[in-house]
């Protein structure tokens, strides 16, 4: 008897402490969360995104975006209202000017950090968003500024989203959805939406990135056929709707050529450009080694197991792995004799081969 009642008390106590939602521990966790920088910053970002897209956020949409209960979300809203960050109106949740200012800074930190992870570390593209989302809250304002300066005050994140300036100006992306873009006209991708993740993963898997030039070949209610430099892509309209494009600028048009990795030993070629998607350490290394537009490359030999391959660039033998040679676009030299230069060196304009 006694044993059973003790057991019951212990069970009740445990329930009191560990009950989901209402238990002591759960409440303590919720309180911690409400006070945390992460909750507030995530809420600001959601409100800002909604405002940007034209429909105001609600407590429900906030709860959905943050993955918490409506009760908790409304507590967060109250808290932020008390801090003067937002106003609850009939139409939804409205950011105050102060809230707006903070939101822009959060967006800035997030996008800068995404860019950093994508270009300066070995984190895979599909993981970048998630990781940036978790880590952005620990950045101090100074670190954000350092990051910005380190990457040369970039204009956009790897998805093509604009990065706001330190003073809060947010450049607009101009463009239209790929779904409505005329067939046959060369289009440059300016933005790829990273939500929802499974759609984004498909776009990444197709190798479509901001900066790329594509052409719509065929469109039907069920599918969209695209042509890029080398491949053909078939996309569902839902997926295509997440890609924003604009008419490709002149200088990007003459992008014929092939990847350096496609060449065989003994062949010679002239470098056209380094792929836009190749950024960070690898791009800087390429440049240092003299892999610049107009440089001559000769494929010298494969290693014992086929990869990497050694290339002669500016009289030096450099070994590159296949996926690196993929970044380098070249034009084959005819029969390897008297390679032609793209243009004179002295006119000052040394942009991509026109």
């Amino acid at each position, binding site marked *: 008897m006694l044993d059973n009642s003790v057991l019951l008390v212990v069970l009740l106590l445990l329930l009191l402490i560990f009950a989901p939602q209402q238990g002591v521990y759960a409440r303590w966790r919720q309180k911690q969360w409400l006070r945390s920088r992460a909750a507030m910053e995530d809420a600001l970002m959601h409100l800002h995104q909604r405002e940007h897209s034209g429909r105001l956020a609600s407590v429900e949409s906030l709860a959905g975006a943050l993955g918490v209960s409506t009760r908790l979300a409304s507590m967060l809203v109250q808290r932020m209202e008390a801090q003067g960050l937002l106003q609850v109106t009939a139409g939804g949740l409205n950011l105050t000017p102060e809230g707006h200012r903070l939101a822009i800074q959060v967006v800035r930190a997030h996008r800068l950090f995404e860019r950093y992870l994508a270009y300066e*570390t*070995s984190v895979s593209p599909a993981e970048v968003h998630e990781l940036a989302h978790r880590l952005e809250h620990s950045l101090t304002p100074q670190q954000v500024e350092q990051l910005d300066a380190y990457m040369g005050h970039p*204009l956009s994140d790897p998805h093509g989203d604009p990065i706001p300036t330190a003073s809060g100006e947010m450049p607009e992306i101009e463009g239209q959805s790929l779904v409505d873009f005329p067939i046959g006209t060369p289009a440059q991708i300016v933005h790829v939406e990273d939500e929802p993740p499974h759609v984004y993963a498909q776009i990444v898997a197709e190798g479509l990135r901001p900066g790329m030039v594509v052409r719509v070949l065929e469109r039907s209610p069920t599918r969209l056929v695209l042509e890029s430099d080398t491949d053909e892509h078939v996309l569902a309209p839902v997926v295509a709707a997440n890609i924003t494009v604009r008419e490709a600028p002149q200088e990007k048009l003459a992008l014929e050529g092939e990847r350096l990795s496609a060449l065989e030993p003994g062949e010679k070629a002239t470098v056209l450009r380094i792929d836009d998607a190749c950024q960070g350490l690898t791009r800087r290394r390429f440049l240092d080694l003299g892999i610049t537009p107009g440089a001559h490359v000769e494929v010298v030999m494969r290693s*014992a197991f086929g990869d990497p391959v*050694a290339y002669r660039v500016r009289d030096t033998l*450099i070994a*590159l792995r296949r996926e690196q040679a993929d970044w380098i676009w070249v034009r084959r030299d005819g029969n390897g004799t008297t390679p032609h230069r793209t243009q004179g060196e*002295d006119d000052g304009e040394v942009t991509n081969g026109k």
Partner: protein
Amino acid sequence: MREKVVHACESCALREQLVQMGVRVDRFDYVLALAGNPNTGKSTLFNALTGLRQHTGNWTGKTVARMEGAFEFNGKRYKIVDLPGTYSLLSASVDEEVARDFVLFANPDAVIVVVDATALERNLNLVLQVLEITDRVVVCLNLIDEAERKGIEVDHRALSRELGVPVVPTAARQGVGLGLLVQTVAELVQGRLRTSPRRVKVDARVEQALAELVPLLRQVYPDLPNARWVAMRLLDGDYNVRRALESGDLLRLARREAHDQELEQARAQAVSILSLAQRLQRQLEGTFRDRMVESLYAEAEAIAQKVVRRKGERRWDWDQRLDRILTSRVWGLPIMGLLLMGVFWTTIQGANVISDLLATALFWVEAQGSALFRALGAPWWLTGFVWHGVYRGLAWVVSVMLPPMAIFFPIFTILEDMGYLPRVAFNMDRFFKKAGAHGKQALTMAMGLGCNAAGVVATRIINSPRERLIAILTNNFMPCNGRWPLLITMSTLFVAASFPPAFAAAVAAGALVLVVLIGVVTTFVVSAVLSRTILKGEASSFTLELPPYRKPNVLAVLYTSLIDRTLVVLWRAVVMAAPAGGVIWLLANIHAGGQSLSQWISGWLDPVGRAIGLDGVVLLAYIIAIPANEIVVPTIIMTYLGAGMMTELESLNDLRRLLVDQHGWTTMTAINLMLFSLLHNPCSTTILTIWRETKSAKWAWLGALLPLSIAFGVLLLLNSIVRALQ
């Protein structure tokens, strides 16, 4: 030209910046910097100029090797600082940052840029960058002999006209042109030679941005000699230059003494300069680096076209033919295997002889020393501690460790110098890529077979941060020469003994190869896991230069490999081994309750040891041997015998009797011991080296605990399985 260095200069000009960069200038009249691409013969030139008056170290706070040397010419003393070999100064790596900061902030009296006459175009990229920073430059056109053989002719007078600075053709290896080089440098630093360096014509959009930024910089810093270059660095988002601007260091660079008021003012104006720079950077849409490098190379191409003449088409013949064999699908691997086996065979055979001689000599000294102590009436414990403890530990480690390293490292360095090792990395990269690692890890692993600490230092050749960390953290899985004696003893005594005598030797060798293979497999598995988990946030990039084959410079190799690798590693080991010897002696000779301390401790450790198929004595030996793995076996024997000092047994039969008959060792025990020896934590020298090389206690801890937990895990698993099967 090489005179002796005159000492003690009482009144030398104070050079604040140089002192700040850690250069001791007290005895020198002039300080020179030596810059250049990798593989241009820069080190050869440095050695030729300075002889043996060198000092190696590290750049403050960086794991980049730093060489300093001195020479005297016409009564003036020169100090040369050898900068790391880089392709560029635009900082894609720590090396470039170090070189760039030195040229910019330390303000040396002259910079000698060594260029490779056979690849002028690429080398000019660096020259043009240096010319943007300073006009006190002498270009050393090196390897003219090699160029001649390849049918390349460089018109050095025309090159000098194009660059606006003196150009001296040299062949540093043969000593050709060095006199003229020094003469020219002397004239330059004494102001008898005027230069008018060529400035790079950048593309229109960059020029436009510079036109806005440079005047503002000039206005705030009227004395700054290289405002244009500082502006370029700001447009590139260079963090160090930005900080120098914010802190006022840039003002001090322009003017040796600056008043507080001026500093204050400069700092205030830094804000407006930086915000202008930021606006311009955004206008360039992050294309500054591309445009800048394209302009540099376009200019380099134009210059090279004017001054280089090529004769004939047979220029790459010899190299290419050799490469075709050494990297071929059929011959690449066998040649590599044969060479490696040759290196090890030579090392082991040679080391045996020297090791015996050394041991005889060193232990003779011990006998004499302890006899002397006894004759002088020293108490037994003093004699024991000093001679049979501290000295014996030291002598043991030196006699086991020094000979193989003194043979292995020079051979290895010669292969490196000839240009063969990069080809090994080239061939092996395919496998390392799959594990997220760099092909050059093959080289640091091979180095680890000699000594893990040296292997960790050697990872400096891996110029990608993530891959370098992987190589550092996994180097331990290559058994170093401190562990070889144990592995050899175990495989002959136990593994081979279970086979007929005719096969014994082959089986023992096979067991050793198997151990190394297990180490290699472990390395790959751990590398793959690391690269996909905790190291995913590190930057990663693969490039591998394959330098032309060259005749090795044997004397220089012997010198550097002895100084840089062998002696440094040996010294650290000695510092560790001597105290360990003392501790071992104390443990064996302090008695309590009828047992020595070592017997007590091994008794406590016994349950843990049994769990992984070993015993307490072995674990105790491993704990004591953390400073030096060489002393594991002697410590085990000492504790089993209850002796007062580390001992070795005369014959294998005695050893078998002790281990098998008296302490119940089985073949399984031996296998466990070999695995434990292969996988357990690195020695303290290596752990310390990891800490120094990574500048991080976190990686040092990981480097120690990761292998240890793997060792325990593997042995626990193996022994549970074996027990379950029995």
